[in-house]
Each structure stands twice: as C-alpha cells, then as structure tokens.
C-alpha cells in the first residue's frame, strides 16, 4: 500500500532519463487528483442509472445461471449417471472444471498478495477485480467436487471432521481431504483479503452515496471506518500480514490439487513434476482470465486512465513466462516418462499424441505452447484486440490441459481389459457452461455494487498524495 509508483519519480535532468531509464507507459494517466480518482471510480457504483449494457450482460449471464440450476436439479434428482463418467473414467468434467476454475482463481491472489510484497505498484488498479475473480472462480470450482459426490448432504462426514452419530472420522492420509482443507482455507482467506481491502472504499461510498439505502448498507459494511491514523497503521500491518500468509497459501492450494493426481499410481498422474507445473499453469490461466475480463471492462467503463497499456503489457509478459514454464513441464513430463523405462509410463505420452484423444492433445499444444509465442513481440503485446484473443486461446488451452491429464491418463491404465472411453453428455456441458454463467453473473453484480478498483490504493498513486520531502525527517 505504501509503495510509490516508479513512473512518477521524475528525474532531475530529463536528458539523463532518456539515456538511462527505459520509458514505460504510466500506471495512472497524468492529471488525476485525489478527488478525481474518488469520483471516477465511485460514480460507476453510485450512479442511479444502470447502463443498458450492464442489464444485457447481467441478464444473459443470469439466463446461463438458470441452465446451471436445471442441470444441478436434474443431477440431484437422477444422480451422476446423467454424466458421461463411468469406470475407468470416474473423473470426467467435474474434476477438469474444478482444476480449471481453481487455477483461474490463482492469478487474483498472485496479483493482490505476491505483487504487493514485491512492491509492484502497477498491481494497484487491477487487484480488486482480480480478487473478485478469485472468489467467484473458487465458488464455481467448489461446486464440482461437491456435486461429484452425487449426494453432497450425505458426504459431509468424510469431508469435514465433526462428531457424527456414526463415530466415523475423515481419512487424513488422503489428498482428497487435504484438498478440502486447502480449498476451503483458500476461499476463506481470499474473502477476508478482499473484504479488508474493501473497508476504506466502503467508507468512501458511505460518505458519497446520495441515497439513504446506500448510506445504510455501505455504512454497515464499512463498520464505522473513519480513516484514523492509528487505524490505518494496524490496517496496513494486517494487510501486509495477510499478503504474506496468502502467498504460501496460493502455492499450496494448487500443489495440493496436483497431489490429487500425483499421489495416485495411475501412469500420467504419478509424477513429482506436478506441483510446480500445476502452480505455473494456474498462474498462466489466471492471468489469461484477468486479461479476458480487464480488456472489455476498461473499454466499457472508460478506465483506460487507470488500467493502462502498462498493465496489459505486464500481464502479457507474465503469461509468456508462465506459458514457457508450462511448456517446459510438458517436455519434462514426456522426457521423464521415457527415462523411467517403465513401459506403462512410456505409453502415456505416445497415447496422448496418437491415441483416440490426440485431437485434444494437439489442440492443447497449439493453444498453450505455440500461439502464445506471439507474445514475444511488442507489437502483439500492445495490440489490445489481439491480446484479448490470445487470452481466450490460453483459457481454452488450459482447460484442454486438464481434460488431457484427467481423461487420457484414466482411459488407458495398466490392463487393456480395463480400458474405456469417455465422452461428455449434454448435462456435463450444461453444468460447465452454467458455471461460466454463474461466474459472469457474480462479476456483473460486483461491477455494479462495489468499486472495481481500490479507491484508497489508487490515491497513493497520485502525485498530490505525497508528503513533501523536507517533512520526512520528522
């Protein structure tokens, strides 16, 4: 929070600056004041006129939420038999989508926590909605393992340790239980982090709202925040500590998710590279989703002053780096399979590339490895429409990656007599598409009712916010 934007530190001699400092686009457009930042961001929420585009987007997303409702109702009525899963592929779309959504969430925590600790001031204008994205993605992810149990209300006793009438307790040596703890902790800490960040902004909305309902609701949520210096001090301490706690947490979550696979002996799953490879993939897909959301949002709400080309370029660079790590993961996976001299392991990459799911595998390589290489070029990184398309392709690629890992590993394990095929049914697709609708609907509600950019943090980016040098000696 206290970091100062490097781009605003104007050197004394401009000629020296040109010679030594590369020029970056600023993290906030020049000319903004404390007042203009407050008014611009809060007016999006406090306006009485809801934009027509918002209604169209929200209602479209809400229509898809209803698809999810129908799919879930029918599922609870009939059971998981309505999906394409069967032995040997018991983990179809449910787990593919779970891993995909959880991975998307990871970029939000990375932006809000890790980039905060690294004093990357450019994170400030994107962290709030990236955190919201995390929350909604985790909400979508959480649905899948729950409904995959078929009768969730009967499954609680092995998910959570609580004294039940059967005197049965969870099996703590199972990575599936680790997953329950990792994901529920992640959801809780993400919500806390998000809410703490919102408190000063809720106070701003309380003070600026014209309607009584607005003042009462935002007032209750702000809990009486008054911007006292002593409060700010503890607030900043708490925020930094949360960032420090969330950083190892986010790495642990996808590590534990990868353990769901790596602890099993199935060829293609049983590999030690999974934790780092999953974490890199999570950040890759998450940044792709942040770009997918940020590009239309900044255009529609006219936020180009706050989400500048600097942000888009930096995110493209993070995508390029994590994409290369993921590509390296694919290569290592194949190399280690060959090096193991285990015929079942060697068969896995061969089967992925030439077997019945070869189409998925090569689409994944195209989407995740080949196409993102265009991000090496600055012309691409500064071309917003192309960047948007690349981000969509990476989102697709990362979904395909999880499909390939889950399905191709299970469909050909040790005994040919146990081999099988998997194809999703209409209900698999309806549930998946339904969660995309849920994600978007929640995001639309967030954009309408809460400030999508941290007002208090953006203020620290404005030159006016700084205390004169000669006073700092006090």
């Amino acid at each position, binding site marked *: 929070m206290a970091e100062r934007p490097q781009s605003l530190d104007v050197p004394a001699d401009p000629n020296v600056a040109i010679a030594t400092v590369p020029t970056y686009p600023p993290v906030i457009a020049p000319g903004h004041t404390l007042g203009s930042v407050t008014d611009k961001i809060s007016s999006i929420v406090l306006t009485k006129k809801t934009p027509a585009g918002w209604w169209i987007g929200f209602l479209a997303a809400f229509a898809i939420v209803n698809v999810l409702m129908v799919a879930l109702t029918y599922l609870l009525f009939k059971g998981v038999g309505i999906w394409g899963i069967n032995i040997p592929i018991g983990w179809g779309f449910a787990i593919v989508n779970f891993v995909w959504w959880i991975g998307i969430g990871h970029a939000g925590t990375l932006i809000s926590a890790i980039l905060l600790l690294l004093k990357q001031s450019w994170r400030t204008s994107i962290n709030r909605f990236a955190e919201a994205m995390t929350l909604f993605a985790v909400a979508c992810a959480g649905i899948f393992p729950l409904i995959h149990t078929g009768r969730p209300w009967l499954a609680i006793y092995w998910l959570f340790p609580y004294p039940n009438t059967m005197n049965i307790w969870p099996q703590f*040596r199972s990575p599936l239980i680790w997953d329950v703890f990792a994901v529920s902790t992640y959801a809780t800490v993400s919500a806390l982090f998000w809410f*703490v960040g919102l408190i000063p902004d809720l106070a701003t909305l309380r*003070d600026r709202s014209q309607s009584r309902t607005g003042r009462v609701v935002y007032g209750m949520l702000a809990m009486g925040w*008054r911007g006292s210096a002593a409060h700010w001090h503890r607030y900043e301490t708490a925020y930094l500590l949360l960032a420090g706690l969330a950083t190892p947490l986010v790495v642990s979550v996808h590590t534990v998710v990868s353990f769901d696979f790596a602890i099993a002996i199935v060829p293609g799953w049983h590999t030690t590279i999974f934790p780092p490879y999953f974490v890199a993939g999570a950040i890759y897909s998450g940044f792709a989703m942040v770009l997918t959301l940020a590009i239309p949002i900044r255009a529609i709400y006219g936020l180009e002053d706050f989400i500048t080309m600097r942000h888009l370029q930096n995110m493209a660079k993070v995508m390029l780096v994590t994409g290369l790590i993921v590509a390296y993961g694919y290569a290592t996976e194949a190399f280690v399979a060959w090096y193991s001299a285990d015929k079942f392991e060697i068969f896995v990459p061969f089967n992925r590339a030439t077997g019945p799911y070869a189409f998925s595998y090569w689409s994944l390589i195209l989407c995740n490895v080949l196409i993102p290489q265009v991000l090496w070029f600055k012309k691409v990184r500064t071309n917003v429409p192309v960047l948007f398309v690349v981000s969509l392709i990476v989102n697709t690629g990362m979904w395909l990656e999880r499909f390939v890992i889950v399905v191709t590993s299970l469909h050909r394990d040790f005994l040919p007599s146990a081999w099988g095929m998997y194809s999703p049914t209409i209900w698999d697709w309806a549930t998946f598409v339904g969660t995309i609708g849920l994600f978007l609907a929640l995001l639309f509600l967030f954009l309408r009712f809460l400030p999508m950019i941290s007002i208090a943090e953006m203020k620290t980016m404005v030159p006016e916010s700084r205390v004169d040098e000669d006073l700092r000696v006090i």
Partner: protein
Amino acid sequence: MSSKKPDIYGLMAEFEDPTALVAAAARAREAGFTRLDAFSPYPIEELHHALHTESTKLPALVLIGGLIGCAGGFGLQYWVSAIAYPVNVGGKPYFSWPAFIPVTFECTILAAALTAVLGMLALNGLPQPYHPVFNVPRFALASRNRFFLCIETADPKFDLDETRKFLETLEPREVTTVAD
C-alpha cells in the same frame, strides 16, 4: 473531562493536503497534546512517525493465532487417526505424520489470517456504529480528498479557546467544534 463542557468531543482542524496534516500533527505533539487523532483518505507513513503510532501488537497476535492453528490442526489429525478412529490405510502407521503436514499448514494459515483480520478490527475498535467525528458535516470528505486533525477534550492540555487558537496557527482550512 468533568471540568470541560461534556457535550463537546474535541476540536477538529481541516487541511487540504497531506503535508499540512503531517506538519500539524507533529506540531501538536510537540505542543504536548496526547489525546489527538489524524484522519486521511489513504495511509500516510509520515503520519505514523509524527503521531508515534508506530508499534502495534497485531503481528504478535497473528503469530500466536498461527501457532494455535498449527497445533490444533496437527493435534486433530493425530487424535482422529491414532486414537479416535484408527484405520489401517495401506499398512501405514496410525501416526503417519508426514501425511498430516498439508492440513496442518492450511490450519496454520487459516487461524493466522482470521487473527489478522479480527485482531485488526478488535484493536481498532471496529465495528463502531457511532463516533463523534462524524458529527462534523465536512468530515465526509475525510474519505475523499481532505485531511483532519482532532484534539479531544479528554486531553489534559485541552482548553476550548487556547486549543482553538493553537489549531488556528497551523493554517487549517477551518476549525470546527466536534459535538459529542
């Protein structure tokens, strides 16, 4: 408190920029005032130095919270797996502690994070539905672009006229009386 007017919480000076607030806070501390608070729309590091609000118990509380979460999470798994419901899983010992590390870690983080947030709110005295500073109409700008310094009547040095004169010397935009 009793010698002063009971219906006044304090005197509040409004400033237009952070430098003026930090300077005013430092001058007020030098003048011997102890019951004073400054309000700003965003955190100002220099203000903490000026007001000597640099130490907080919060990190220690978070450490304790994390340790409790760690011990609780590990203890729960030990009790469940070795005492309450011992099940032979793949021939592993009942007390198979390496398998307990992920859940122990998550419980540590969860308890520490909850302590950080609830501790911050508790030490700040939040939620607090009513506070006298909100009686000043212009205080609504404290969350936008204005900076305020409030000296409370509870301060031993507080005197309505003298303190007002002192605040006027700090070149504020205006000085207002805060009703209690």
